[in-house]
């Protein structure tokens, strides 16, 4: 493990301001480190900012990302350095000096208010790279509307120095004489997450990109779909602006392409295309969408369901690579010839073709690697180690995100958190030494003032403003009783808008604020913070959601959507008049993390937390540590899992901050965030553990197949059993081995992909070939899902002569006993002919399923499960290791099937999240907790029964009490209280009643 000499520097430099860099920065900042976030572009946000929606939930990408962007921009421990590049890294782990060059932006960031006047007068038009060049921007520009920092920059290569902008700028922010700046930063560690580039499809000229205007890349298509895109979210053909009714997607353009030097799979494109197909059908209901693919790789959590949904919605999946996209002269139509599922060949015409272009290492990574002194791998991505996620060849320099390997957003977020955990561990001794604390001005006393309400109505670009008449709503609000200020904002959540709200509060001496925008779930905290900055109690705030509740659901009736928005605003203003300040309470956090599950993930999480300086109690129900790791003997990449098992076990057992309890079963969990009490039984002994946070790393198991003669014939085994045979060397006699994939996966009772089996089969096949080169291996598969760099091992297996034979789920292989041996019959789909294979061994790739006790633990810890019985995280994309309840985290196979390396990264990620909580030291209660009018309480105890968080109890006098820090404000008790003694702050009966009256007043 990496160590530092002497006391390290408590700061970290993060390269790359995409979702990966943002996550790493936030985790480290929360964990008490100073962070410099270095981004080459004029704003952070990266690729995710360019996405319209994200799979498999179809969440608006910008809507989930924007709060993170703003949080990064506001975090007292984070300094964002845009237009900047790392030029030199000297020093050692724990104490680096980094030379950063910041290119002249020619706009003073302290003066620019992002008003955009400069943009309107700039005469120079430049292709807009944020929209993939599909439209034009000006030479002075802001990359996208929600950009952080939300200020302009001048494209120095395009600027004609007409100084129109400087003359227009009332803030005097334009500085034509600004020069590049070079400076040095002292940091203890670096995290490199510079993201990726897309494959240039002109490298595959047969697809016509660059020649045929209606052939676009997947990212261009994403921009076409996006409301902030070149056509404001209207999906049209670039050639003539017409609506494309027939759309084809071509997969693997520049991926899995040995001939173009990209052996690997880009991991995201299959689902990306599926998402875009579904969105296209939303935009154009009668659209006919076809996806041409080789293997459909829906391997992630809930992906298989999403894929099924797409097929049910009518997306045509055609298993055939496209040879050529040709234009039909005069029509703009595009012709594609392909093999039909029946085996015939036909030509079909499309209006638009989308090339699912592969992911390549980012431009300049080679230079960055040289400067940072790290090695790259054979594909030009950052070289890291399977069992030591994020570690590069230089101690103290970590890599994360797609720059390490192609991966989707949740895995990128996990990887980034994992990198943060590594840095936090390395710099543990300096935690808090350079951290700043956020201080707000003292709260103004408003209780005796008459209501002075400010209303802010958001356009959300065209998301709201395209349907609802936003200025009209703002005008309407201005005349409501108590309102002294009302205005509309293009993007209320943009950083400049948020500061503007603070300023307006001060300027007009407001004492209540109403924002009408999108969902309060993500955005209310942002606006509440601007109240605090203006010296107002944050609970003097009311939020109206006029996006989901007006513009989105009444898209085709703008007039009534506007009327409804007015109603909602009026109701909110009515309620706002009755708001009173809420004084939150604080609760100390028990500084110990309970880790449940002593497998690879659990041990890694425990070690990471402990190395970051917090005590851990590691609970394992088996008498020994190790979990599934005990049954792994090889990995695809050639690492030794048994050495890892030994290493982890020894370190866990000897760590002074880790207490290991094996053979222990959890019987009861009480308490709440920051202060849990878990009771467990260890043999006859009962123990009570007090802990502030918990990481559930309870794993999953290989299922027991119920078909293919498993359990009936001794020569039918699972992959895990086969791996044990390989490890013991008892495979010399094997001549012919058949492996059957998807045994128990991707079927009705288990409608998910088990993700690891294709890699597992390839791994074992290669091992067998190594031990016994004469053996013939046949792998019967449905789709080969060797995503990312695993594809190279699929390639290697083919090189070694492993024969891959696809089967259709409707015609599963048949296994028949022939004495000691077996015969497998499978219909070979390419030749459409049955093959009989006489074999010595049948190996089944059995599904991964949740452990039987998962459901019980979920109940004990009150955390949700997915329909498949795995733990359900707080958010599929951006909170992959958090449960919705703060203080509860998850890692490993209990979350979903994954490889060992992925589980280790997730364990470290969960660890840094828990450390981020514990490092706070104390918890603040929510503002929407309940209060009890003791005089009215009858002591019936119904509230105690209905509270899902254990925040209610009856005291010795049978009066119901509330633990404020635990109350999540769900309102269940307030709703059931028969006497009205329980009132929820911000949702008091009188407030709600007046709102209802106001609603009926229309």
């Amino acid at each position: 493990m990496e160590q530092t000499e002497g006391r390290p520097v408590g700061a970290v430099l993060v390269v790359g301001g995409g979702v990966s860099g943002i996550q790493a920065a936030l985790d480290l900042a929360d964990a008490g480190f100073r962070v410099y976030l270095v981004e080459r572009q004029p704003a952070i946000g990266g690729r995710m900012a360019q996405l319209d929606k994200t799979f498999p939930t179809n969440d608006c990408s910008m809507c989930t990302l924007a709060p993170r962007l703003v949080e990064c921009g506001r975090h007292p421990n984070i300094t964002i350095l845009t237009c900047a590049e790392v030029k030199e890294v000297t020093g050692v782990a724990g104490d680096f000096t980094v030379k950063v060059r910041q290119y002249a932006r020619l706009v003073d960031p302290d003066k620019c208010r992002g008003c955009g006047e400069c943009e309107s007068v700039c005469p120079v038009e430049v292709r807009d790279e944020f929209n993939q060049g599909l439209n034009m921007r000006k030479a002075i520009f802001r990359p996208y509307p929600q950009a952080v920092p939300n200020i302009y920059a001048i494209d120095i290569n395009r600027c004609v120095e007409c100084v129109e902008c400087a003359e227009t700028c009332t803030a005097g922010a334009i500085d034509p004489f600004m020069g590049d700046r070079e400076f040095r930063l002292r940091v203890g560690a670096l995290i490199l997450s510079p993201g990726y580039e897309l494959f240039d499809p002109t490298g595959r000229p047969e697809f016509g990109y660059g020649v045929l205007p209606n052939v676009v890349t997947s990212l261009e298509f994403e921009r076409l779909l996006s409301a902030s895109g070149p056509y404001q979210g209207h999906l049209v053909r670039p050639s003539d602006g017409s609506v494309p009714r027939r759309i084809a997607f071509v997969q693997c353009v520049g991926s899995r392409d040995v001939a173009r030097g990209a052996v690997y799979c880009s991991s995201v494109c299959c689902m990306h295309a599926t998402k875009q197909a579904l969105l296209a059908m939303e935009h154009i209901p009668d659209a006919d969408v076809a996806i041409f693919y080789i293997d459909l790789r829906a391997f992630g959590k809930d992906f298989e369901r999403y894929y099924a949904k797409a097929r049910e919605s009518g997306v045509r999946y055609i298993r055939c690579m496209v040879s050529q996209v040709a234009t039909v002269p005069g029509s703009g139509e595009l012709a594609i010839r392909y093999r039909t599922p029946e085996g015939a060949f036909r030509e079909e015409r499309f209006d638009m073709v989308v090339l699912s272009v592969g992911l390549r290492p980012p431009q300049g990574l080679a230079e960055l690697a040289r400067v940072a002194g790290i090695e790259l791998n054979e594909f030009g991505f950052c070289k890291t180690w399977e069992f030591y996620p994020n570690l590069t060849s230089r101690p103290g320099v970590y890599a994360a995100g797609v720059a390490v390997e192609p991966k989707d957003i949740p895995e990128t977020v996990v990887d980034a958190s994992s990198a943060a955990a590594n840095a936090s561990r390395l710099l543990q001794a300096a935690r808090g030494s350079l951290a700043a604390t956020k201080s707000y001005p003292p709260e103004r006393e408003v209780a005796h003032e008459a209501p002075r309400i400010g209303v802010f109505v958001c356009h959300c670009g065209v998301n709201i403003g395209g349907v609802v008449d936003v200025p009209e709503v703002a005008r309407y609000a201005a005349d409501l009783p108590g309102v002294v200020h009302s205005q509309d904002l293009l993007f209320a959540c943009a950083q400049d808008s948020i500061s503007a709200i603070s300023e307006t509060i001060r300027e007009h001496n407001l004492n209540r604020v109403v924002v009408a925008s999108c969902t309060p779930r993500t955005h209310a905290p942002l606006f509440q913070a601007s109240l605090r900055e203006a010296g107002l109690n944050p609970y003097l705030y009311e939020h109206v959601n006029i996006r989901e509740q007006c513009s989105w659901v009444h898209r085709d009736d703008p007039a009534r959507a506007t009327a409804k928005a007015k109603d909602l605003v009026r109701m909110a203003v009515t309620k706002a008049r009755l708001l009173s300040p809420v004084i939150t309470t604080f609760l100390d956090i028990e500084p110990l993390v309970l880790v449940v599950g002593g497998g690879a993930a659990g041990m890694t999480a425990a070690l990471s937390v402990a190395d970051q300086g917090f005590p851990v109690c590691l609970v394992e129900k088996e008498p020994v540590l190790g979990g599934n790791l005990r049954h792994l003997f090889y990995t695809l990449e050639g690492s030794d899992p048994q050495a890892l098992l030994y290493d982890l076990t020894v370190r866990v057992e000897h760590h002074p901050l880790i207490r290991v309890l094996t053979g222990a079963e959890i019987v009861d969990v009480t308490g709440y965030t920051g202060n849990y009490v878990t009771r467990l039984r260890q043999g006859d002994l009962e123990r009570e553990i007090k802990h502030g946070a918990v990481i559930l790393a309870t794993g999953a198991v290989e299922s027991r197949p119920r078909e293919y003669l498993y359990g009936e014939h001794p020569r039918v085994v699972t992959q895990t059993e086969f791996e044990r045979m390989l490890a013991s060397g008892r495979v010399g006699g094997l001549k012919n081995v058949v492996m059957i994939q998807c045994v128990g996966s991707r079927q009705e009772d288990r409608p998910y992909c088990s993700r690891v089996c294709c890699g597992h089969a390839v791994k074992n096949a290669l091992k067998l070939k190594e031990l016994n080169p004469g053996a013939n291996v046949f792998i019967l598969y449905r789709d080969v899902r060797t995503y990312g760099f695993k594809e190279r091992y699929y390639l290697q297996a083919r090189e070694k002569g492993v024969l891959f034979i696809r089967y259709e789920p409707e015609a599963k292989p048949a296994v028949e006993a022939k004495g000691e041996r077996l015969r497998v019959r499978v219909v070979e789909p390419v030749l459409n002919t049955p093959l009989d294979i006489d074999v010595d061994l049948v190996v089944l790739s059995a599904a991964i399923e949740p452990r039987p006790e998962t459901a019980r633990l979920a109940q004990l810890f009150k955390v949700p499960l997915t329909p498949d019985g795995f733990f359900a995280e707080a958010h599929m994309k951006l909170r992959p290791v958090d449960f919705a309840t703060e203080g509860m985290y998850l890692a490993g196979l209990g979350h979903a099937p994954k490889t060992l390396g992925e589980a280790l990264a997730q364990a470290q990620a969960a660890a840094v999240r828990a450390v981020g909580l514990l490092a706070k030291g104390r918890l603040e209660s929510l503002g929407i907790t309940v209060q009890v009018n003791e005089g009215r309480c009858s002591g019936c105890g119904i509230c105690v029964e209905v509270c899902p968080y254990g925040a209610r109890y009856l005291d010795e006098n049978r009066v119901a009490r509330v633990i404020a820090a635990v109350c999540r404000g769900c309102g269940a008790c307030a709703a059931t209280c028969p006497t009205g003694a329980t009132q929820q702050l911000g949702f008091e009966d009188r407030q709600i009643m007046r709102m209802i009256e106001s609603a009926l007043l229309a």
Partner: protein
Amino acid sequence: MVRLAYYPGCSLEATGKEYDTSARAVCQALGIELVELEDWNCCGATSAHSVNNLLALALPARNLALAQKLGLDVVAPCSACYNRLRQAEHALRYDRETRAAIEEAAGFNFLGGVTVLSLLEALVKRIRPGTIADRVVHPLQGLRVACYYGCLLVRPPEVTRFDRPENPVHLDELVAALGAEPVAWRGKTDCCGASHAITSPEVATALVGRLLALAREGGADALVTACPLCQTSLEMRRPAGETMPTFYFTELMGLAFGLPGTRAWFAKHLVDVRPALRVLAQTGS
């Protein structure tokens, strides 16, 4: 003055006679001196590589040896010859093992000085840009042609070094310089099936029929090609009722340059070219 060794190939002595005569005439008109290789032999065409790979490289290599002796780059008008000669050159340059075998079989040492050119390439890259347009006296105004590159001129691109192998434009630019209108169409590099013209005429006819239909879809009056095998196949194996002619690009150059002898070249076509050229009379060209 540009001097090049000239490798006519067997077809230009027979079915592609008018390509040979028009190519020589056009080169002379543009100041390119062609020196026919003394005692050249057949390149093996589409057959030798179906029989033996080394033979298919050694046969053209003997011609490279002849060019090497002359000290000139060699130009091959026929796409098949060009491709075979170029394949041999490529193997000699980049494949050490095969080079040894070829040199052994063909009995010479490749010194690396000889480059193989297609006639199209020579006219595009070896003379001053604009020379062709300057030489035009009768612009081919109104003639809409589908430029047909076929397979062997462009593939494989690492051997032919052809720019934009999926959407080549050299021929289009050339006919445009002659005043004709190159149409956009999607058969530019599809195979015409010439290698099946003798052995599976029905396959050849089907492929020719498809190409002619695509050319018509693009609005062309005629095809233009740089290959005698394609030209013969396109005219000889056309489906019944098809009347679209296929010109050698050198014929159109001769026409636009006002060279004598065009009538004799056109007379050799298996399709009457006059209807396609009638548009020129109308526009006064």
